[in-house]
């Protein structure tokens, strides 16, 4: 198809779709009209039922825990899919050759940057653990904490270079962490089946709302997701950086 024909077809179709979407949006509730029976219900029962003070996390990891199971595996599968696509091929070999190890040294790695990143690593790790573990209490949870945690390793990369990042996060360990995070969330769900007879049943007692150890299984699910997300992001960067810096073809 010629570029012109394609453009005409796309624009005509797009205009039609936009018109249809406008027609649909006109049917939504008016501005200010609240149609959230579900939100009201959850807000009403969440503290009493689950001792969780963050309703969003409670919905993610408890009321609709199965969705999160699937979503977590979407991330997991994307990353192992990427690992499959970027795996070492026949005729390629991995290893820092003299040329690449020179290239990969981050040019802007000054003393000031090193000092700053070194100072940031600790607080970032603490913040990540805080977000992972306090999901049931305050906004946050495993997905957010996991991304923040992965940022700590980016700091290592910035300050210490790629080989340093590889040394503190060995590939095998990261893979293991990612998979055990994914499995761990499922195992919490399975725990519900074993101890309370229903998959994803919150089988631990709620505890006191506002306490760190409260809301039953939610903190554990959240930590597992945090581990999975950190592992997934680190693996993602490692795979791409590997491909860019370490792999040389024939």
């Amino acid at each position, binding site marked *: *198809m010629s570029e012109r024909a*394609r453009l005409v*077809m*796309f624009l*005509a*179709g*797009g205009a*039609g*779709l936009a018109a*249809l979407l406008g*027609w*649909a*949006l*006109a*049917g*939504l*509730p008016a501005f200010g009209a609240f*149609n*959230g*029976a*579900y939100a009201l*219900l959850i807000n009403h029962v969440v503290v009493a039922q689950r001792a969780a003070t963050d309703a969003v996390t409670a919905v993610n990891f*408890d*009321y*609709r*825990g*199965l*969705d999160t*199971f*699937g*979503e977590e*595996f*979407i991330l*997991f*599968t994307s990353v*192992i*899919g*990427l*690992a*499959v*696509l970027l*795996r070492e*091929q*026949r005729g390629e070999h991995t290893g820092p050759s003299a040329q690449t190890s020179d290239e990969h040294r981050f040019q802007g790695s000054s003393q000031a940057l090193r000092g700053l990143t070194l100072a940031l690593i600790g607080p970032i790790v603490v913040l990540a653990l805080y977000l992972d573990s306090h999901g049931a209490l305050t906004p946050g949870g495993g997905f957010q904490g996991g991304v923040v945690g992965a940022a700590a390793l980016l700091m290592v990369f910035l300050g210490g270079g790629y080989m340093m990042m590889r040394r503190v996060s060995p590939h*095998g360990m990261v*893979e293991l962490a*990612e*998979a*055990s995070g*994914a*499995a761990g969330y*499922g195992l919490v*769900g*399975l725990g*519900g*089946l074993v101890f309370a007879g*229903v*998959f*994803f*049943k919150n089988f631990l007692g709620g505890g006191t709302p506002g306490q760190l150890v409260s809301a039953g299984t939610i903190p554990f699910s959240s930590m597992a997701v945090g581990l999975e997300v950190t592992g997934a992001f680190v693996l993602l960067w490692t795979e791409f950086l590997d491909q860019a810096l370490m792999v040389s073809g024939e």
Partner: protein
Amino acid sequence: MPLTVAVPLLGAAVLAAFCKVLPRAAIDAIGVLCAIAVVTLCALVTADTGHMIVYWFGGFHPHGSVAVGISFSVDRLGGGMAVLSAVLVTAAMVYSVHYFDEIGSLYSALMLVFLGAMVGFCLTGDLFDLFVFFELMSVAAYALTAYKIEEAGPLQGAINFGITNSVGSFFMLTGIALLYGRTGALNMAQIAATLSGHPADGLVKVALLLIMGGLLIKAAIVPLHFWLADAHAVAPAPVCVLFSGVMVELALYGLARVYWDVMSGPLASHAGGLRATLIALGVLTAVIGAVMCVAQRHIKRMLAFSTISHTGTFLIGIGLLNPHGLAAAAQYVVAHAFLKAALFMAAGILLHRFVSVDEHELRGRGRGADAGLRVAALVFVGGGLGLAALPVVGTFFGKSALESAVGDAHGYAWVIAVLILTAALTAGAILRVAGRVFAGWGPEVSRHHSELSAVSDMPETLGPHDRTPAVMSATPAILLVVGLGIGLVPSLRDAIAQGAATMTDRASYVARVFDLHAAHTVPVPHAPLSAEAFVFAALTVVVAVLTAWLALRPPSWRVARTGERVLTPMIVAVRRLHSGCVNDYIAWVVAGIAVIGGALALI
């Protein structure tokens, strides 16, 4: 019931965690055992399903008429599709034990994720959860398509597949968001209850369009089908087994589920227009798929277009919007799944032995005495005849039921001719391959002789092999036997009749999910086999054999040459549209969905 999803996903995580440590035999064994466990679990759940089982995850039962958690709402059709998915995944994993010379454990992990996602998609009763599993299925499928990274082809095919289907996901998610904005609900039964009683307005129609759009892209309905042939041509054969055998059919299952159990209430007064739209799409897909199928010489692409043609046929069945059509389509899907799976595996044997699936290049080379080649020959002959609905084997019962359902629908009797012709053409192409490759019939054609030359084919295993591993011949042989014989199992027909009746009874579906009193659903009665069924089947087989015959022994009559002169430019023009350029595909998708939307706006 939750284990049906938990086992494959956790199995995948375990395989990914220990991929470097475990020996290959252990990885294969874990993968296959997980898949077998899922078959067993799904079969148990389905057998246990009277009308419907509702399972609330986390034990959150509905609060009055508001669903608090997520439910699996399983009826016979949903459970049956889950069983079918699990059986094909098991077969594909057994088949691939020796298929790849180098296979990472990640292949098995991806297959298990794919399985878990398909099962979840079949069983869920929640619209957003349906989308989550749909997306998970897609992500695993993209990676599996590109599995052979040594070539540019698989990557290109996977990119076309990924981009086109991601656009579909956007459509679907937007549609779900619109429905959520209207109803404040995600559980299908709750949405249905909230929507029913009001006539469909713009929002409901466009939500249907967008959800349907995402599913029709995945189901490879013309003109949204372009990705499928590219992906099938390059994906490993055992992966094609799953794509053609169940994945595209699952998308149509999703469409039936969303129509019947969510939106049939407000759309009741528009059913006539929707029927016309869906049947028109189905006919277009069946015809284009069949024509393109005959015009291929790359065997995997040919089988891919045969699948497109058949999904068109299934869409006709579902598009009748009555229980008879749905039951007929379901029965057709089952036989087709086994036969198409066997055919892709046979193509995999050819690829394994000769590093080629070009029909002309392989001419006569399949005559070897090797067991694998004999099986492949049998599969192509049996699969061709089975897809041509040779009486009492293969797709015969499904196709007859569909013909009678179409015949009963007012004004659609002409569609029977489409069903016969397209089934005959696609089957004829397969018989042609059988004659040329395994018997050496037909004139010799050089690789670049015709305008209809093939894309290059990719070796999936290292170099040609002298023999075929036993599992690679045994698996397609078993699938062929099952595919040929499965129509004869009366309990399957009963289960499908029961399932179709349950699925199409929206009021009872809602009542069962919310644990209210539901009226007893009467199974769809069997249409007795009429003499017509045998006449139609005989006609199909004759036209199929004739198609193959004409291709292998081109007659010198003038009428044939005139026909060729007229038809070839048309076929070439249609082929040109399949450019392999994803930009074109997206333009087609946008324009196609807009046209379907226009039709929905007018009904």
